[in-house]
């Protein structure tokens, strides 16, 4: 193959190729020439300038915090905004002796300030060199003056103006709105575009809409002198303010709901039955989110976390309670739809029912006599639903409860929500490895046992009954818009699922619920609106519930004397007006120790009155004294 010689004549290079290669060479020389010119410019012409900059690391970067988006109610009333505040910062590298500086500083800040310093510096390990660490946000004027006049003793310390979150009405709607706090290390690793020391929504709306509310950080490169004082700004990009969140919440109605709950712990949810918009979502007790905005102290934090009343919890979505007799609406729907009973089917209530060796009591010891489903709902007869429950079986009950939205999350725009629980035989086998016992169905039939629901789910369910069987996804946010009013997010069309109940059966249940509030033997008469001095007549339809919180109970005598956590929960769900429903409401009073008709129904009444008679409402007539006079049970 080879010709044996190492030297082989080289191929003739085509002139075209030579020309191209020459052009390439010229191009390479030109480009490298430009790079070398640039290099010479930086290193020779500007060399001394950059050398001096590098000696003290004189170019600093400051992040400019954006103004967080404002939260307003559906009418545009501002609920959460920002106010300017002074933040105390330190650049540790600029402090000649950090411990001395901090010791001097703690004179002005007091003891709690010292904790903050330790915490801030501990967290600063992943900051850039010469980046400022925030020691305390929102310092008061006294501190500002003190620090400014003692700057010579405080090398490296300075004050910066930044926005601070302001919750205008303090406790108002706080479990719903949530709060902001400094980003944690875990959050920092998970999310994009945040830096140490940034504020982030931690709960509620603040967290759910964080991406819109946060805005975008700006930044500034500054040249500083050897003492860390700013000489000039090299470049600056202004921060972009966060978007405005317009809630579906009606602040007036929310106020009415919180007022109506009074000193009770509990929740109120009001929902538009046609759109699914949540008009009010009250949860008591609340807290003051401004504590977090200012930098919460250790004492405040432990007060909030240790309180057995759990003020940070939004009970409307995070509280799962047995529904008690309000569950009878589900039972009636299931029984009618499955044709286990007809509208006129009657059972005899003698005050209790024997199942096996155990007697399950009706709340009315004397019994209700012969009752059909309408009367059973109006008077909340337990025995009737024991009978119905036995005939349905737990799995068929569960199917209708699921269809009506129970046992799973509603999908509301909040970061956390409980699904509640609707037991089935399969669930029990998986959870406990045990079969389902018939006696347990009896408990389920009156909304006890394993059953648990959230107030929001009950409002959603009631709305579905009211609007002809459409289960609506609850909407908390009406829209999100930029500061200059451009809409950036809007919920899509109303999302609804058909619950699969015939209109005949729905009508029957609705009529019965009307009876609960408007007939002499109804358990929910305290919710009547026509007792008010109003010309308009608004008919309310509802259902009461009293749910045992503990199987054993707290002993004999009045529940008022029982321990708090053993007392019954009081429920009331309702919709109005009866003929053309507009709103649905669910009221839960936690450990009320009283019947739903007595505690929860008047609360619903007060809120509904505000909804229907808001303009020129007679405040005196709204008083609940009158309603309390008409005693009603369950």
């Amino acid at each position: 193959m080879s010709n044996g010689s190492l030297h082989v004549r080289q191929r003739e290079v085509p002139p075209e190729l030579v020309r191209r290669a020459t052009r390439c060479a010229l191009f390479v020389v030109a480009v490298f020439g430009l790079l070398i010119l640039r290099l010479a410019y930086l290193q020779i012409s500007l060399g001394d300038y950059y050398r001096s900059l590098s000696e003290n690391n004189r170019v600093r970067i400051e992040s400019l915090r954006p103004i967080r988006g404002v939260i307003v109610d559906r009418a545009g009333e501002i609920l959460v905004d920002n106010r300017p505040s002074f933040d105390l910062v330190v650049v540790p590298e600029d402090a000649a002796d950090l411990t001395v500086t901090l010791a001097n500083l703690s004179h002005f800040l007091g003891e709690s300030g010292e904790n903050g310093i330790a915490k801030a510096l501990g967290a600063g390990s992943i900051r850039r060199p010469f980046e400022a660490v925030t020691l305390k946000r929102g310092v008061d004027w006294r501190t500002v003056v003190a620090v400014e006049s003692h700057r010579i003793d405080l090398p490296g310390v300075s004050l910066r103006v930044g926005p601070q979150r302001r919750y205008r009405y303090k406790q108002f709607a706080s479990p719903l709105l949530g709060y902001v706090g400094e980003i944690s290390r875990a959050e920092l690793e998970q999310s994009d575009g945040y830096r140490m020391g940034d504020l982030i929504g931690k709960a509620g709306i603040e967290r759910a809409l964080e991406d819109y509310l946060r805005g975008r950080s700006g930044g500034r490169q500054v040249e500083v002198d050897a003492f860390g004082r700013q000489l000039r700004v090299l470049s600056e990009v202004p921060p972009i303010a966060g978007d405005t969140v317009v809630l579906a919440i009606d602040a007036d109605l929310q106020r009415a709901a919180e007022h109506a709950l009074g000193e009770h712990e509990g929740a109120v949810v009001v929902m538009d039955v046609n759109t699914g918009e949540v008009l009010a979502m009250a949860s008591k007790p609340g807290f003051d989110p401004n504590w977090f905005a200012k930098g919460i102290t250790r004492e405040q934090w432990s007060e909030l976390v240790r309180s057995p009343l759990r003020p940070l919890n939004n009970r409307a979505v995070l509280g799962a309670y047995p529904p008690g007799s309000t569950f009878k609406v589900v039972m009636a729907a299931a029984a009618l739809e499955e044709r286990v009973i007809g509208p006129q089917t009657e059972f005899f209530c003698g005050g209790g029912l024997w199942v096996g060796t155990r007697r399950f009591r009706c709340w009315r010891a004397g019994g209700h006599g012969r009752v059909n489903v309408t009367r059973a709902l109006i008077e909340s007869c337990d025995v009737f639903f024991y009978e119905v429950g036995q005939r349905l079986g737990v799995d068929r009950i569960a199917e209708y409860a699921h269809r009506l939205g129970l046992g799973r999350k509603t999908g509301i725009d909040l970061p956390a929500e409980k699904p509640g629980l609707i037991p089935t035989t399969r669930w029990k086998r998986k959870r406990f490895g045990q079969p389902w016992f018939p006696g347990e169905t009896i408990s389920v039939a009156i909304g006890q046992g394993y059953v648990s629901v959230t107030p929001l789910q009950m409002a959603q369910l009631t709305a579905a009954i009211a609007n002809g069987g459409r289960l609506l996804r609850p909407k908390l946010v009406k829209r999100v818009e930029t500061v200059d009013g451009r809409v950036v997010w809007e919920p899509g069309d109303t999302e609804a699922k058909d619950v699969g109940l015939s209109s005949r059966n729905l009508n029957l249940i609705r009529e019965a619920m009307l009876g609960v509030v408007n007939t002499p033997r109804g358990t929910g008469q305290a919710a009547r609106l026509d007792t008010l001095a109003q010309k308009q007549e608004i008919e309310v339809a509802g259902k009461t519930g009293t749910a045992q919180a503990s199987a054993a109970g707290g002993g004999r005598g009045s529940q008022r004397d029982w321990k708090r956590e053993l007392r019954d929960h009081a429920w009331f769900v309702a919709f109005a007006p009866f003929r053309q429903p507009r709103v649905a409401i669910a009221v839960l009073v936690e450990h009320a120790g009283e019947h739903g008709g007595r505690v929860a129904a008047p609360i619903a009444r007060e809120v509904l009155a505000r909804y229907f008679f808001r303009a020129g409402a007679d405040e005196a007539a709204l008083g609940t004294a009158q309603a309390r006079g008409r005693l009603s049970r369950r």
Partner: protein
Amino acid sequence: MRQFDRRLLYHFDWFLLAIVFSLVCLGICTQYSASYGLGSASSGIVVRQFSWALVGLGGMLVAVSFDYHYLERHAYLVYALCVLSLVGVAEFGSVAGGARRWISFAGFSLQPSEFMKLGLVVVLAHYWSRARSLGRSTLLDFLIPALLFAPAGALIVAQPDLGTVVTLAIVLVSVALFAGLRIKDFAKLAIAAAAAIPFLWAYLEPYQKERVTVFFNPEMDPLGAGYHIIQSKIAIGSGTVFGKGFLKGTQSQLHFLPEQHTDFIFSVFAEEWGFVGALALLSLYAALIGRGLVIAMRAKDRFGSLLAFGVLSIIFWQTVINVGMALGALPVVGITLPFFSYGGSSLTVMMIGAGLLISVSTRRFTF
């Protein structure tokens, strides 16, 4: 066969090899300096880069000893394997720094987009070596390779790695011009492409638009890219004429520079060795590229010529983009300095590329 080997050795391109070795050694020294003060992490970086250099050397030897005409015969297979590895990244790749670019196994992680560079050059050289004779190429001869490039480009954009895609596109155009695409035709294409941009722009998601905007205008992001640029300029400028000396670069020692042993390694070098050192370094690259041009010109056949030109245009453009970025003259993109930056895949690919250059150079006399 024995004679074949002797001839290879006789015509071996020692000059090219010497330049590559000096660049790799200087690179490792600079990485040591850049990570100096990081304790054990520093020696770890040097040891790892040295091991990769040995791997690269192996790859280089293989590239030299194999006849590059194997590549010509299996060009599409090579290219398909590269595209497949990119699909692998999209499916099973590991994420770091917000991008999915690596395939990890047994403690190593490879970056297939680096290997794609060679794959693209091979397939381009193959296609255009068979196209009509030089000077007669038409637009169609350009469009088919451009379509070949599309899937690879899309996969790399998705990672996302805009810098690599831009480099590959520039290499594609460079090789096309060298293969005979007329400037006039290229201008038409460029105008058409520019006209298409607004339409493509409309299809992008807001976050993608933002990424592209910051790419071309880093001042918009003073905390990120803008910060890197000013720190890099301070580092380079403060080196002045003679530099601060080895291990004395304060900007880099204090870790002001981001990615200082990968993307900003030039800044570290220029700070410590000054204008004189940086000039010397750039001269090494210029010599390498000049030598490469001679090899491309004198290659025995058209495939060898285009292959050599492709490899050297990768080296040239990466050098220009990386140094231009460090000097604050070009947008900040994640492009490594060939042979110099820290990074196993990049170094290995560059050394294999150098091996291909030597292979083309050595075989120019053999028949």
